[in-house]
């Protein structure tokens, strides 16, 4: 059976096409102002990649913050369920799933059958989400993609006093004035987000294996900080930002 999952994230929209449990097509667009239209474009691109037509897709499910605005989808599934469904399909030993997107961070405990036991969520504060790295890269005047590689070069852990992204921006500027190496500041930024995410993970009583998904899993600096703060390694799928959409496509198959 061919199914599709549409993840309407706060910043980006991801579409995954699944054929018999395999990801055969995927696409991502910036959500922008017209999220529904952006989703439509991503869907068309994903179908093209899979070499399929709209009529080939039997079931479509949506997820993500804007899941009610997804085109075509007959039903919607919570982000928590999709994250677990996608992660456990790739890593059957996963017991904790950490998902860090642009505006939300969450930690989920799950059973081996993929049932959600507990979860903790930050959706109120940019300090525990990808938006934090964007704000800090602006203050550091580097591209957000450069922040991770820069961070792993740091040899010196310095604390960030500010928790709030707005205050942290001023702190970064002060650190730059004080001639603190950018590498160390980048690491401090990732340590700060990691400590917020770990507090979510502690709330749910995290256990290995820990799978990390969401856009921030692409950031090697954050991954480094997170592993250090958790005290264990994390497993990262090759397309971490697509796992929510993948989980939705798998959920659509189940009906």
């Amino acid at each position, binding site marked *: 059976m061919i199914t599709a999952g549409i993840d309407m994230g706060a910043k980006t929209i991801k579409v995954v096409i699944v054929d018999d449990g395999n990801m055969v097509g995927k696409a991502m667009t910036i959500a922008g*102002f017209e999220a529904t239209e952006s989703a439509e474009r991503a869907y068309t691109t994903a179908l093209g990649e899979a070499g399929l037509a709209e009529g080939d897709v039997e079931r479509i499910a949506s997820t993500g913050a804007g899941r009610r605005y997804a085109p075509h989808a007959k039903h919607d599934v919570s982000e928590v369920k999709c994250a677990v469904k996608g992660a456990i399909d790739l890593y059957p030993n996963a017991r904790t799933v950490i998902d860090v997107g642009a*505006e939300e961070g969450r930690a989920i405990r799950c059973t081996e059958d993929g049932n959600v036991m507990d979860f903790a969520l930050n959706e*109120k*504060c*940019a300090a525990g989400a990808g*938006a*934090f790295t964007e*704000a800090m890269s602006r203050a550091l005047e580097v591209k957000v993609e450069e922040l991770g590689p820069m961070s792993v070069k740091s040899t010196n852990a310095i604390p960030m006093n500010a*928790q*709030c*992204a*707005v*205050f942290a921006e*001023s702190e970064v500027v*002060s650190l730059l*004035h004080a001639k603190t190496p950018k590498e160390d500041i980048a690491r401090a930024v990732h340590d700060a987000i990691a400590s917020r995410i770990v507090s979510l993970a502690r709330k749910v009583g995290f256990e290995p294996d820990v799978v990390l998904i969401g856009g921030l899993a692409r950031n090697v600096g954050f991954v480094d900080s997170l592993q250090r703060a958790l005290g264990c390694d994390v497993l990262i799928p090759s397309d971490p930002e697509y796992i929510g959409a993948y989980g939705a496509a798998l959920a659509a198959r189940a009906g």
Partner: protein
Amino acid sequence: MAEYWRWTEQRWHDEEIDWRGGTLVTAGVDVGSVSSQAVVVVDGKLYAFASMRTGSNSPESAQKAMDWALEGTGMRLEDIGFVVGTGYGRVNVPFSNKAITEIACHARGANFMYGPSVRTVLDMGGQDCKVIRCDERGKVTAFAMNDKCAAGTGRGMEVFADLLALPIEDVGKLSFEVEEEPPPVSCTCVVFAKSEATALLREGWPKSKVLAAYCSAMAHRVATLLEQVGVEQDFAITGGIAKNIGVVRRLEGEIEVKALPTKYDTQIAGALGGALFAQNLLRKKLSTN
């Protein structure tokens, strides 16, 4: 690039007062994270003040504010009998004789500025927001504070002034130029409120409507903090945001309590309280000598 967040720095001194004839000449210096103030008090009267942006160096900011307050008065630092440092940089005031917390100083300053009937002081500063309950002498009885998050602080308002490219001092007035009050934007995170506001602007909302939505979000956020300690009347607001009627009027509406007016600059409360504490300390010092 224009700096819309930049509020006017100010100084003032009372030409009527002959400080040379004064017995107790003291000062308070409040080095905040965003602004610094220096206040000089002569025999229980406000004599001079200066209020300016804090630079990257706290001792320097303290010195600059003090120098500016004294400009044109003929008074030198040596003429001041006792200096109290307060604010987040209070230990970095090189010429202070004692450091006192800003909570104590704000209550004391508000007691002077608004009168002894004040029981609740809301201080809306650059990077924090405090609710202080106090007695008729301006002594602190309880307080609650948010210094972790920019929502409900002056810094958050600066971010919005920049986003909308509107001078920060016009924000309050402009926020009332709406046909009807819009629902507030996200009140817990300035970063998220900013992206919401950007979306609303693209949707065609006029700037004044976006400001109205932000001012009411801020009022709501502060009201939550006030609930933690409760509002006993009389109620007074200090700090920079006290000058923003867009936030003040909406907050008054939400908590159904009016804030007392004052003839003083609301940003000087902390430094003024410091100068008043300094007066007691100087009196004690003179009597023991």
